[in-house]
């Protein structure tokens, strides 16, 4: 706790803002496609990640909407006189690809790979991540993995496209869609499934390595490249979140890799580790899979929590409350997250002893999460809250995460989990946590750093409206699923008893509403990119280091690294105007920079 003492006597921020002329920032530093594909600059890599990940998000979203549409009627195949076999298979493919693409290609890389790459080094005061080449490699690996999934996708589209017109046997080699569920449960995935399990698992395998390399890179960067004054307890909480995430990425992902390799081996060579027909044990597969995939949930949520910590404090103009507790709770969650995987297997025939142990540890994870929520709420106390778009998302995050976390109590308790397991209650729960919370943090962060990354301001009101639409849509889509689940609606069902139809109707309506909101968001960003106003270096008055350099940042982030102190001493900035944003207190507002000439604001 010595660091807290440091924070007390933190010197006012050195405002060594170095304005490079606009035509020399990382976007304009080099020209040409090659300069992007082979770039070693962490910001450009982040941008490339952003493009790819968001396009995969679009694909996953389209699947989501289409399967919600199929669920509008409890008996879609009969109602429209469709080929039953075909419709069911199609639905299974839709929810599987929705899950697989969203989890492996969107949620996991979204915040670490996009925002981590864009922001981490600047926030840390470094010129780049520790291993720029490795960073570029992880991007390429991600692309390769994505191609595997695209291949599976294409295979599915071809197969079912032709099947609809009576040619059921058109297949790409080993790639007719994917119908195992994103969990690849054996023995279905290793024996019965006729779909493209091998390419899909290989894809996830490859993407996993991209995630590992990112983790290696971030951990090394955070350990070695911390500049003068950046002690561990002066690191912004977003970096703590990324640090915890990286730990999970490097410790858990290799196990996923070996698991998927075993699935491929099982399917191609019948090695008999998971398939009971040749002496294997399906439950062992679940141990393997969830040893990665439960910590993966924290890969998704921890950086999101980091983002929220930044947003809350900046937009309530107030020092974050309980810095140490938030920081340590991130690490605690990361480590405890490794000890709870078995709560995915309470009804799978796991031994009662193991069930009980896992249930107990699961509850212990609830505590640091609760601590975070209370700290964020307390940060608002006596603030001066500005409801900019990022702040709306942050508040939305807190609510959704509260719901998601609390409903986790039902599933962590052994006896109540029994009726709720594998029902829509679980679906709603993890969408509230993974989708709701993580997506809200992601959008909030995107809005928050948009001016810094692109040097353009988005349209505020549109952003706020979109935020509300997304929030309403989300709750309308997923809250009814809690009720449906409690009433007994099992997950992954293409057709279902009629009594659940009403909930599905609401859910689908909400999904569409949310889709609409997201389209507004996209429109807002594209419009901002094309003709948004020029962004000031510090539009929000944040005090973390990325706000100490120009927007967009120069190629090397900092020529002279600013002295670092308490990242949340927001009092050091004062608001000037839309054009100039916030500037260090006690300094005359800088004259507007004439085009093509740089002005240094000195302290």
């Amino acid at each position, binding site marked *: 706790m010595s660091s807290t003492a440091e924070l007390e006597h933190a010197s006012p921020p050195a405002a060594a803002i170095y304005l490079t002329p606009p035509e020399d920032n990382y976007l304009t530093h080099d020209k040409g496609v090659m300069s992007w594909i082979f770039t070693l600059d962490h910001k450009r890599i982040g941008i490339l990640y952003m493009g790819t990940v968001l396009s995969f998000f679009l694909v996953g979203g389209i699947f989501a909407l289409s399967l919600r549409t199929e669920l509008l009627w409890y008996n879609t195949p009969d109602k429209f006189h469709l080929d039953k076999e075909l419709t069911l298979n199609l639905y299974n493919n839709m929810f599987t690809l929705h899950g697989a693409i969203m989890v492996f290609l969107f949620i996991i890389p979204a915040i670490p790979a996009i925002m981590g790459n864009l922001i981490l080094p600047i926030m840390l005061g470094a010129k780049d991540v520790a291993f720029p080449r490795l960073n570029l490699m992880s991007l390429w690996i991600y692309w390769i993995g994505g191609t595997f999934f695209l291949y599976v996708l294409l295979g599915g589209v071809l197969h079912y496209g032709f099947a609809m017109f009576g040619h059921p046997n058109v297949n790409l080699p080993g790639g007719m869609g994917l119908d195992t569920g994103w969990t690849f*449960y054996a023995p279905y995935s290793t024996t019965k499934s006729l779909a493209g399990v091998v390419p899909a698992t290989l894809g996830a395998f490859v993407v996993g390595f991209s995630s590992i390399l990112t983790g290696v890179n971030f951990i090394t960067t955070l350990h070695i490249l911390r500049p003068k004054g950046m002690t561990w307890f002066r690191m912004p909480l977003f970096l703590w979140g990324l640090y915890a995430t990286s730990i999970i990425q490097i410790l858990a992902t290799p196990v996923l890799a070996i698991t998927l390799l075993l699935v491929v081996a099982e399917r191609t060579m019948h090695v008999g580790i998971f398939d009971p027909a040749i002496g294997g044990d399906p439950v062992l597969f679940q141990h393997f899979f969830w040893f990665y995939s439960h910590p993966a949930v924290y890969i998704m949520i921890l950086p999101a929590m980091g983002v929220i910590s930044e947003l809350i404090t900046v937009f309530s103009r107030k020092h974050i409350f309980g810095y140490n507790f938030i920081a340590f709770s991130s690490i605690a969650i990361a480590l405890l997250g490794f000890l709870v995987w078995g709560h995915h297997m309470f009804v799978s025939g796991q031994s009662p002893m193991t069930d009980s142990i896992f249930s107990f540890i699961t509850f212990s994870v609830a505590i640091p999460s609760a601590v975070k929520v209370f700290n964020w709420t307390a940060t608002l106390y006596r603030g001066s809250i500005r409801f900019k778009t990022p702040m709306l998302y942050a508040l939305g995050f807190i609510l959704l995460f509260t719901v998601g976390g609390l409903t986790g109590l039902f599933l962590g308790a052994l006896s109540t989990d029994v009726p709720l397991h594998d029902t829509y209650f679980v679906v709603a729960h993890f969408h509230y946590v993974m989708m709701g919370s993580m997506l809200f943090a992601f959008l909030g962060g995107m809005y928050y750093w948009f001016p810094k990354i692109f040097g353009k301001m988005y349209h505020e009101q549109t952003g706020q409206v979109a935020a509300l639409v997304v929030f309403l849509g989300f709750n309308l889509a997923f809250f009814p699923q809690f009720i449906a689940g409690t009433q007994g609606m099992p997950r992954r069902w*293409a057709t279902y008893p009629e009594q659940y139809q009403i909930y599905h109707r609401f859910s689908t309506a909400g999904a569409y509403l949310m889709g609409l909101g997201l389209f507004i968001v996209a429109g807002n960003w594209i419009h901002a990119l094309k003709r948004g106003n020029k962004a000031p270096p510090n539009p929000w008055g944040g005090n973390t280091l990325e706000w100490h350099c120009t927007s967009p940042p120069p190629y090397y982030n900092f020529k002279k690294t600013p002295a670092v102190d308490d990242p949340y001493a927001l009092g050091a900035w004062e608001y000037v105007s839309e054009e100039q944003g916030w500037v260090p207190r006690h300094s005359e507002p800088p004259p507007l920079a004439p085009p093509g000439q740089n002005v240094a604001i000195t302290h």
Partner: protein
Amino acid sequence: MFMHPSILPILADIWMPRAASTVAGPIDWLFYFILYICIFFFFLILGLLVAFSWMYRYQPGKTQGPAPKHSTALELTWTFIPTVIVIVIFYYGFKGYLDLAVPPPNAYPVIVLAQTWGYQFQYPDGAIDDVLHIPAGRPVELILNSKDVIHGFYVPEFRLKKDIVPGRFNRLWFQANEPTEPDKPYDVYCTQYCGQGHSTMRSTVTVDSRIDFDKYIYKISHFVGPPPAQGRHIYEKHQCIGCHSVDGTRMTGPTWKNMWGNPVDFESGPRLAAVDAAYIRESILQPGAKIVKTFSNVMPPQSLKDEEINEVIAYIQTLSDNYKPPATTQPTSGPATAPTTAPSAPLTASAGSAPASDSTK
């Protein structure tokens, strides 16, 4: 000790379905206990957010009061309280789970045999059916096996769920005290994704009074009829009906209509001039041996006795248009007189006939 859901009637109505088993009580109690905790904390957080957002919203000219950066006392408080709460919840969950885990020794065991995509329930005396009947007021233990992939067994009204894992023998037990209303059985759902027919893999469970249950068991365990009728019975009770149609419609497996005696093509290997007993027998015992063209092998090997296989073959023969019943055999659908060794209860080919013991009296 149970907090009755009707404390919050609205909630009670929309959440859990009616509780029909003895294990449901504690589970529901814990559910509503947690639910009230959730409601409290959610509105606590919501209230704080709204209050703070309003009181401390940005107003030009309004200066910002001093606020603490941290308060260890506060931190410890809101670390300690959730800890206590989760420990309490864990305890009750653990307790309820143990009651679920250990069946009483006198439980009535029923074997649940799952395959893609249907259930088969085997009663201790060997009777087999595709729907579950259980005696009221008596502990029942289900022994869950799967023939192929992982399936699930879920009865919402009983608050019971267990995966059916091939190679393992998961068990669950419960006791249902109230017989179900006539024709209103509870649903059985498959909750573990098992492929194409996952969402159509459903069955029903009926709670009978003791005497009705005895009658039911008697009825299904003494089905007697000429071989084709027996074959039809097996066709219905052994889940063939799930994948093979008898009216020519294409389902997961080839239809049985007009199969007998007609040529058939295979995915690999020479074409079979005419379907015969040998081929059918092989297809039942080793479904993967010959796969009919345009179909894929999702059928698990069936464990039928020889006479049962012959009965199925006899039934399949009757399904071809050019089938002429031998003069000695009776029409398959009509009532069949039982051999003298069997109880003199007139039974029809389908198990849905009148309960036997009614006709005996």
